[in-house]
């Protein structure tokens, strides 16, 4: 047989491959130059007829050319695929200025968020949440809490009376009264949160229904110092390490009663900003966040406790007011309305 011209085969292959620019053309070159009927495959198959003394050298030569062709084909394929991929990726541009398509989340009510934050602090101190009825007997709302009929304190909480001599609770202190009546073992550490009702003329800042959270701690040996320590802990856990001040207040069911003020975060206690009264605190330098006191001896006696044996700390947080401060909505009526644009904007800017 004639000696195959592998260099000519390689040259022809190289020329054909140089012309190929698509995967299909590459495949055609592969079939023509390395397929079963290609010259290189015929040369490989014809090696058996080559004299034994020439066969190793020729076999090496044919194989080298065949492998060079395979390498070239692979490289050409890879190159073309890379170009094709690059072209495809370029075409697959998406307009990311368009909005995302995941379903937008809703949100919890800001008052409940505040309530949960408060409860989280109280739970760390061992408080557990308890609940009670909203339609309540006046005994638990007033009489048991040292608020007899015609007491001026009843002016503070004008009441919705309902059928049957009952009322809509005007504070969550009713829950405390019910817990004390049940005489659980000491210590008692409970928190009650929920809706309360006031029969007031409703406007942007006054509601007939809003939320409160109250706490009660009953044990032996609780002191005024403990009251201040507990309230400071609660206030600073919720608002950070801002200065706290205490001032006398009056609540019928505590004695002494205290108000807890937090230093105004805007004017830092100065009462004014740039020479004008601070709007956030109305020039006071302080913002009231809590009402509290030592449980009144009359309340203890009402439920059969000896006030010389046990003492108690009661406190209340206006969660509605706290939420309005947190989200910067002074018209609390908006928070209690059902316009969902308000609720959306409380959680998503610019919608």
């Amino acid at each position: 047989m004639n000696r195959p011209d592998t260099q000519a085969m390689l040259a022809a292959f190289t020329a054909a491959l140089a012309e190929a620019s698509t995967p299909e053309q590459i495949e055609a070159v592969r079939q023509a130059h390395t397929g079963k009927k290609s010259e290189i495959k015929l040369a490989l198959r014809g090696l058996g007829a080559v004299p034994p003394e020439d066969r190793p050298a020729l076999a090496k030569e044919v194989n080298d050319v065949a492998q060079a062709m395979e390498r070239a084909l692979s490289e050409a394929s890879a190159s073309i695929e890379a170009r094709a991929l690059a072209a495809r990726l370029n075409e697959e541009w998406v307009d990311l200025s368009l909005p995302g398509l995941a379903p937008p989340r809703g949100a919890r009510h800001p008052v409940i968020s505040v309530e949960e934050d408060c409860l989280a602090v109280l739970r760390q101190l061992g408080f557990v949440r308890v609940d009670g009825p909203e339609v309540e007997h006046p005994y638990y709302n007033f009489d048991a809490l040292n608020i007899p009929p015609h007491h001026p304190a009843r002016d503070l909480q004008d009441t919705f009376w309902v059928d049957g001599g009952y009322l809509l609770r005007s504070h969550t202190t009713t829950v405390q009264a019910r817990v004390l009546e049940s005489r659980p073992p000491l210590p008692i550490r409970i928190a009650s949160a929920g809706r309360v009702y006031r029969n007031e003329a409703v406007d942007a800042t006054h509601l007939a229904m809003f939320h409160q959270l109250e706490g009660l701690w009953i044990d032996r040996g609780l002191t005024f110092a403990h009251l201040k320590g507990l309230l400071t802990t609660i206030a600073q856990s919720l608002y950070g390490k801002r200065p706290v001040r205490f001032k006398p207040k009056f609540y019928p069911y505590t004695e002494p009663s205290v108000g807890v003020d937090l230093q105004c975060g805007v004017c830092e206690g100065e009462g004014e900003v740039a020479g004008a009264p601070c709007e956030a605190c109305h020039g006071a330098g302080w913002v009231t966040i809590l009402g509290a006191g030592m449980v009144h001896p009359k309340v203890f006696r009402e439920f059969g406790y000896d006030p010389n044996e046990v003492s108690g700390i009661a406190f209340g947080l206006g969660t509605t007011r706290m939420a309005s401060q947190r989200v910067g909505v002074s018209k609390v009526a908006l928070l209690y309305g059902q316009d969902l644009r308000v609720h959306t904007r409380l959680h998503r800017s610019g919608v």
Partner: protein
Amino acid sequence: MKISVDVLRRYTALPESLRQVRLLLDDLGLEVKRLNPDGHLTLELLANRGDHHCYEGIAREITGRTGGALTTPAVATLTVGESPWPLRLETDLCLVYTATLLERVGEDAGQLTDAQLAPLRAAGLASVLAPVDATNLSNLELGQPTHVFDADTLVGAVTIRLSRAGERAWPLFTAEPVSVPEGTLVIADDVKILAIAGVIGCEESKTTASTRRILLESATFDPVKVRIASRALGIHTDSTARFERGSDPARPLVGAGRVVQLLEGTGAWRRVGESGQVGAWVNPERVVGLSVSAAAGFFGMPLPGEQIVEILGRLGYIAHLSPDDGDTVTAYVPTWRLWDVEYADDLYEDLARSIGYNNTPVALPPVDMGALPSAAELRRHQIDGLLQSFGFYEVFTDGFYGRALIENLGLPDAHPLRAHVQTENALDRAYSLLKSSCFPQAVELVALNQRVKNEQVKAYEWTRTFHPAPQHKLPSGRLSAPCTERRVLWCIASGTDRPRAWLDKSRPADLFFLKGVVEELAVALGLDLQLGPADAEATLADVLHPARQASVRLNGAVVGVVGEVHPSVLKGFKVRKGRPVYLELDEDALLAAPSQAVVFEEPSELHPIDRSLAFSLPPKVEAGLVSEALRAAGPPSLIRVNVVDLFEHEEAGVALRTFTFALTFQATKGQALSADEVNAGCEAMIAAVESGEPGARGVRLRR
């Protein structure tokens, strides 16, 4: 109360700057609500401290802190003797009543000085006539309300009594006489009511510029009686504010003396004879004991008995430390504090106020390990999170509504949704009924949002409904509540399931959307929560679409309802767009049910075999019927039956729905599954559907 800092300085020394005065007053519980640069303050006074309603009371509280001297206005000394006017006391609800007669010296009616009138100006009161100004000043300065009658309008004796049925009086500043509730404490002469005791005087006996003789009243009335009269007549005055908190029963002659001092000082008026008095208040000398060691323990700081005695003395108590035990302080309560000091705890408050609430120690009581949220609280958080992930916003609705809202439902009078507990005194008619259902407010929410062009509505609420219940006597002797309270979770959705989508069309947030929410709740909470047949007796059955509602069942028991809002209701509420859907669940049932553990099955490594079958269903035949028949007839290798497509068409004039059911078969280890076996299984399932109940109701395989 509005006061002037400059006037207050006449009573006691104050810090120089207004800012420091404000801080001092705040610290004493005399909270400054408004501070004007001119030194006028608006104070919010504590409800139990009637004695704070005057300059002297405020100044006394300040001296209790500062230890400064207290200077009080000059007071003419009045002596009680033969009454200048016949007085008759017919009730013990007036503790003491004094009357002093003054007459005009000449034509001049007198005029108080600018300096004297300063408290009036600070309080926003106009100067009227010298006698009236003097009574107002006495109240502002010393906290003793007084009143002057034109003595020449009085007929017969002045009587302090309770009003009789049908009596009328003409209070000052009212256009005409008003009915006085029977039993009101009044001051009257023989023919008319002269004043509502402690509240206001009357027109017919008022002092005018031409008055020549005035009868000056100064008294102490029962606080509750004054308060009731004030509320019944809707009249609230500075006098009421003072009397209803309990006035100082030792002070009527002092207050009258201040008025006399001021009027005689004008040179235009002089006393006639002595003062008359009826009623004989005797100081019961309230004594409160206090243990020095207990007080020290209460505050957590050393508090010597001598210091306690000294502080209480500054506040007007007469206090002694027992020389026997050195621990017992005996404190005689001053007459102006008889109404609010009763226990040692009250003295603690006075001590704390004097020392400064911010000057006592602070200590956190010992606490043990904190508590975790309860299982119910955690579950509620889970539900919140899931609803929010579907786009729901938590909202609040009122616990009540008005009749107008219920009328929108268009229900007959006897319908259970019309049964309500009513509020008796709501200022607003929109609060007249305690809500027995959340549904009306939920639909109103959709209407409200549509009115503001917001058609995307997904809202939920945890709330309560109130259901009338017969009252019965409890062991305490009290009557039970007039209603039961049911805790519910409700959701309403309207608009699309996925707002703000731009790439493809969103689906409406319809009943299937809410059904999906229920199914996901079931998965998330591990509950057997499923939709079941609608309950025709359910209270919401009539306000939901009759063919698009279902019960929600937990372990087979009904715990809620889901459905599309009835078109008539939408019309009643003027909801013009969309088909809102409503879900209501019983909160207690939802939060209390134990979760079921998920039974895990490891996925097979063998490839499943999929087939699909399409069945045509006549109207009102449920696809679930076919699914169930397929499952029942399928071989053990059948692991899933899913509806994957719906094709609605008509054949021979009958509207058909053709559903494609995707069937998944799974071989198990050691048990190969051939295509022939799967095909045979499918044939058996087809036969079961067509020969069973689905077939009997017209279901056919679509080939």
